[in-house]
């Protein structure tokens, strides 16, 4: 059997949007709260205004008070915002690369009109020493593209990540 073909989420997916899902702490999670904000743009540098962005993290561990998963809609200017708990370092991929620790990160999936299948990427956090040795970031060549996955800190506990679907500053997308 083959996996079912992906199809676009389309422009009317907001019928399933629950605006509360941007906040992964809404069930009362404990830990350091951080905001992850940003703007998504297309190949003409215009804001992507109808996308769904999903955030998934395995640290802290999922519990009744922390789903580890959030989803939000990009706004009329392409901006988005999540509130979550800061992740901890994670074990790396098994095998020959020596089980190097992964720097704190969250997985990101992007769905939109014009995307026939999701785009996957990650968000890392500026200032984490482990970013230098992260086994996934290390796979991105040239290294000059690695910062497209690293959110910059704009205030205490506030991070900003721009996502460019196409163009000179195009975000590095991942396949796994």
């Amino acid at each position, binding site marked *: *059997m*083959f*996996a*079912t*073909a*992906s*199809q*676009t*989420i*389309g*422009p*009317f*997916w*907001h*019928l*399933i949007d629950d605006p509360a899902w941007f906040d992964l702490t809404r*069930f009362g999670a404990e830990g350091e709260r951080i905001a992850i904000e940003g703007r998504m743009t*297309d*190949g*003409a540098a215009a804001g992507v205004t109808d996308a769904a962005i*999903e955030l*998934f*993290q*395995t640290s802290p561990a999922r519990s009744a008070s922390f*789903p580890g*998963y959030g989803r939000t809609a990009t706004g009329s200017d392409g901006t988005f915002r999540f509130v979550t708990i800061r992740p901890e370092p*994670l*074990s790396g*991929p*098994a*095998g*020959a*690369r020596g089980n190097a620790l*992964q720097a704190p*990160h*969250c*997985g990101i*999936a992007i*769905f939109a*009109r*014009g*995307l*026939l*299948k*999701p785009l*996957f990427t*990650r968000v890392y956090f500026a200032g984490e020493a482990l970013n230098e040795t992260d086994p*996934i970031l290390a*796979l991105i*060549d040239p290294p000059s593209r690695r910062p497209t996955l690293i959110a910059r800190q704009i205030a205490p506990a506030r991070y900003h990540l721009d996502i460019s*679907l*196409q*163009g000179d500053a*195009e*975000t*590095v*997308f*991942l*396949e*796994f």
Partner: protein
Amino acid sequence: MMIDTTPFRALTPDTQPPYLAPEYRSTVLRSPRSAPVAIPQTITELTGPVFTAPQFPPTDNLALTDGREALGERIIVTGRVLDEDGKPVPHSMIEIWQANAAGRYAHPGDTHDAPLDPNFRGSGRVFTDQNGAYRFVTIKPGAYPWGNHHNAWRPNHIHVSLFGPGFATRLITQMYFPGDPLLDLDPIFLATPDADARNRLIAAFDIGVTEPGRALGYHFDIVLRGRHATPMEN
């Protein structure tokens, strides 16, 4: 909690659409120009969100809103969610949304000049059972025009969102209806190169699912990525 660290298999080429499909115009400025970077699956890709019915309450009858019946042809959609080895995907959340019988979404962005139905909101949520089976009741969505090209119409379809066991199994697709003449004209449907893969997006009419005097039945199985048979050495 036990974590299955067996990686998911790669998707089979041509059974999935590409990012850039110029006939579907919105892909032109939204598809990356660089190929994605292949990475090994780590805990972030091997595990996924878990949804439970108490926190995410199911709504399995889209044809009924506050006790009032929606306009349109009532249908039952049922099937199983399986992995590529045919194993059921149990207790997994499915989100569904669709246009009403006239081909209009209850969405402020839908400007199609077709009537809204106050008794149809057009979204639902169900969970697979222990055998991977799911079922919901709705009305058959209408076809609707869109701006992709001159005289462009989307075939009748229901949007379906699935999560499965890992972030790597996340899938959003569309269920189509048999015999729809618009399928062969639809650049979204046609973007998947493999004809068999396209045809698996079309539900089957099923007289066994059909309920006498009440609703036509359709069967639609959905397959998520399977895992490698044994953990990879790499």
